[in-house]
């Protein structure tokens, strides 16, 4: 089984839209699906703007909470209950018996996600799709592949978006290499990293060093320190979402900016495919199918 996660740099960067495209791309495979947050709600919990629905086909597996399952239109058959509790009930494994929409409330932590992954391996699942939540990244340390969703909702400053993406890509490209290194477990804050400047260190995953807002400083430290990781997902591509919620006098409204220049810059400077899912679904499918086929 291969696992593929969609992580974002903020709320509303297009994670679920990317997930929906992936569901279509991989419809020939036996899929399992979950979210590390909340997906498929009608309206955003903060902005009140409409959210994309998640549509699943018959035969797929779905990992979601009991309460969320009740709000799905897909017919779900309960297979097993995990000992993982969320604010919206226990997490369960379901098989889709009739296509429809699902509300996804999945595991919050890396550990729980790993538990679920192990169970799914036994169920002959070919691809396990994991939708991210807000800007959360740590649970994806155990994923085989990731797609990074960036968008105007994070910032409308293209330079900022480009440099943030650059640092994330850089972290995701750190080598897996355990030889002759000082092991640094757990969260690696900037302070900690600067205290290790010039050393050869091994951190758990790229996610463990990315939890900072001072990405320029992080980039600099990464240049000055030899960092390797124990595990990491492979980055397949970056997606961009030009739409973002704009604060108005009362509530939010959907606005958009042109991100085509950003896409080009990411491809040119970072050498990673970058696309707008709503316009380039086929390209996304091609990238993902190739990778998945080669890996399996």
């Amino acid at each position, binding site marked *: 089984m291969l696992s593929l996660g969609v992580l974002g740099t903020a709320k509303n960067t297009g994670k679920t839209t990317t997930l929906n495209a992936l569901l279509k791309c991989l419809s020939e495979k036996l899929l399992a699906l979950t979210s590390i947050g909340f997906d498929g709600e009608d309206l955003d919990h*903060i902005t009140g703007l409409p959210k994309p629905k998640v549509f699943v086909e018959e035969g797929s597996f779905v990992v979601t909470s009991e309460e969320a399952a009740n709000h799905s239109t897909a017919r779900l058959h309960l297979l097993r209950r995990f000992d993982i509790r969320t604010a919206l009930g226990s997490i369960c494994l379901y098989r889709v018996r009739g296509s429809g929409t699902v509300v996804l409330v999945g595991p*919050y932590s890396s550990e729980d996600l790993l538990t679920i992954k192990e169970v799914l391996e036994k169920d002959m699942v070919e691809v396990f799709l994991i939708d991210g939540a807000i800007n959360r990244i*740590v*649970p994806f340390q155990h994923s085989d592949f990731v797609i990074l969703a960036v968008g105007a909702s994070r910032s409308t400053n293209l330079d900022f978006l480009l440099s943030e993406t650059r640092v994330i890509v850089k972290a995701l490209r750190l080598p897996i290499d355990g030889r002759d290194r000082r092991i640094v477990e757990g969260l690696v804050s900037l302070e900690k990293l600067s205290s290790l400047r010039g050393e050869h260190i091994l951190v758990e995953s790229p996610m463990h060093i990315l939890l900072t807002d001072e990405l320029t400083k992080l980039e600099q430290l990464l240049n000055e320190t030899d960092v390797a990781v124990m595990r990491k997902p492979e980055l397949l591509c970056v997606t961009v979402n030009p739409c973002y919620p704009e604060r108005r006098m009362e509530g939010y409204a959907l606005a958009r900016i042109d991100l085509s220049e950003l896409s080009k810059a990411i491809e040119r400077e970072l050498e990673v495919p970058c696309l707008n899912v709503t316009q380039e679904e086929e390209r996304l499918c091609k990238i993902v199918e190739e990778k998945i086929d080669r890996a399996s």
Partner: protein
Amino acid sequence: MKFVLFPLDPVHDVALKMLNRELLKRGHQTVLLPPDTKMEEVVEICQREMPDFIMVSRTVGYGAAELLARFIDMLDAAGLRKKCKVVVGGKAITKELAAELGYDAGFGERTSWEEVFAYIEGGKFERKKVAVTKVKRDITHGYTYEVRDGTFKDLLDKIADQILTWAKDRTSPGIERAKIKEKILEGEELLDDYLKLCDELVVSYFRKNVLPKKVRFITEEEKKKFERLVREINFDGKILRHGLDKPLVFVQYGTGCPFMDAMHIKVSEAWDADGVLHFDPSWGARCEGLLEGLLAHEEDGSIITLENLKLIKSALSGSTLWCVRAHRGLNTPETVLLAAHAGADLTKINMVYGSLNGGTDPERLTVDGVYALQLSAKYKLAFDIPTNEELGGVPAPKAFAGMLVVAHLGVKLGARPILKPLFCYSPDVMINDYMKDNYVDYNAGKILALRRIMDAPIWPGEPIGFMTHTEDRVQSAMTTALHAALASSLELDAITIASTDEAYARGAITVSARIDTLRAIAEAFRFFGHAKIEPTKKAEEYAEKMVNDIYETLKKVAERQDFVAALYEGLFGTREEGANPGRAGRGTVRKC
């Protein structure tokens, strides 16, 4: 158990300080962090302390979600996520949002400590059903209606007795129709007899199916929708009176459309209004006879039919007091009858106002009024006595003299009156500069005066602050709220309030304007509580003068020995003052 309390906020930590207090009270161990602690530091502290729970407090706005989620990621990276429960609290936090952010639980506004502790300590918590269980109140409870001054009592007795003797052998089409209607309601088929006493408009409706202008039937489908709508309305009641026992708060409705009325009523109930008053179209007062069926009216005023009233009644909460006004027209007795049959609690009768400012002939309304008072006694409907002639220019003491006559008459007939002076900036007040300094003294003076004369419930209306409202919604809500506070300070029994667009609505009033005032008075009641508004010594002077002027008026009326003649001749207010004896129904009273 051990708790780390973390305000993820640059300044705000009140909620966590309160939580800390409660946790300590229950014997838990806590580490309360100051605001603006760096998340990395918090993670380190948690690694050291190894708490069972990490309690994060944050008001959610856009951007805060990323911070809260980042904190979870840090705990996850540090290997702490499964070792501690992480809980988020703050305005706008829901359990859905907690799930999205990756927290174990989330608590929003209005969470009780019990709910939090049930989660923490593993107990069961059942969210209590709407904690406010309202009971219907009797405004007249505890009043004796004793006339406190012997000289007043003599005058009021004399006038009331004269009215009763005069009315004893007189009747009118209004009274006869009420008698027939009473039998119809008992199942007798007397429509022909009824229609003989009606105007053409009513006869054509029954005989030729001709609807009055701008009136249409409510369809069966609409009625079903109405029932569904009302059934599905559910709200967590708000608290309006902040622990104050009085005054009960009434709102007026009468959009013409029973649906809209019902929605206004439900919204008012949700904001904890105690009662509602039904307003009918003005033409309903000038037309002999009432229509039947479920009828919608395109303009102001909701048509009085038994069916319409029952429909409205079906929308009312059990505790909501309901007044159907009957005070001023040619259908006064019949309206009281229908109100009683539809389940109303209160009605409104005042033949002095009704004939001097309501357009009905004084002789006709006096005889009808006496019969209506008898019905109000028979069906146990308390009645209020509005003194809106003051708005036409009649000085308050003259209007009050009329009100006291009707009240005393009602008591003699076994009914329970409620005095309804206005809290208003009336023409007489303007001319005489009674409110030059403040709105308090003259209104307070009115209450002092009335209390000196009679032990009766007092319910300023209608609505309070009349003529002090402007088109500015803030000003309008404010003036209503201050008048409400004055009523509370004077320990009055009830008030009627306007919406903020009531005086200036160009069309039906809006529900948000309705809420404006309810919110504003809730705030006023919260602000004053049991604290008092202190009038100046002017209030006492006004009261004294008012008692004297009421006495003078009553004395003249008693000496005239003919109440109806007193109305025509301006003893309760002259034409110059704005009192104009009405014409509707003139010459219809006959001896029996």
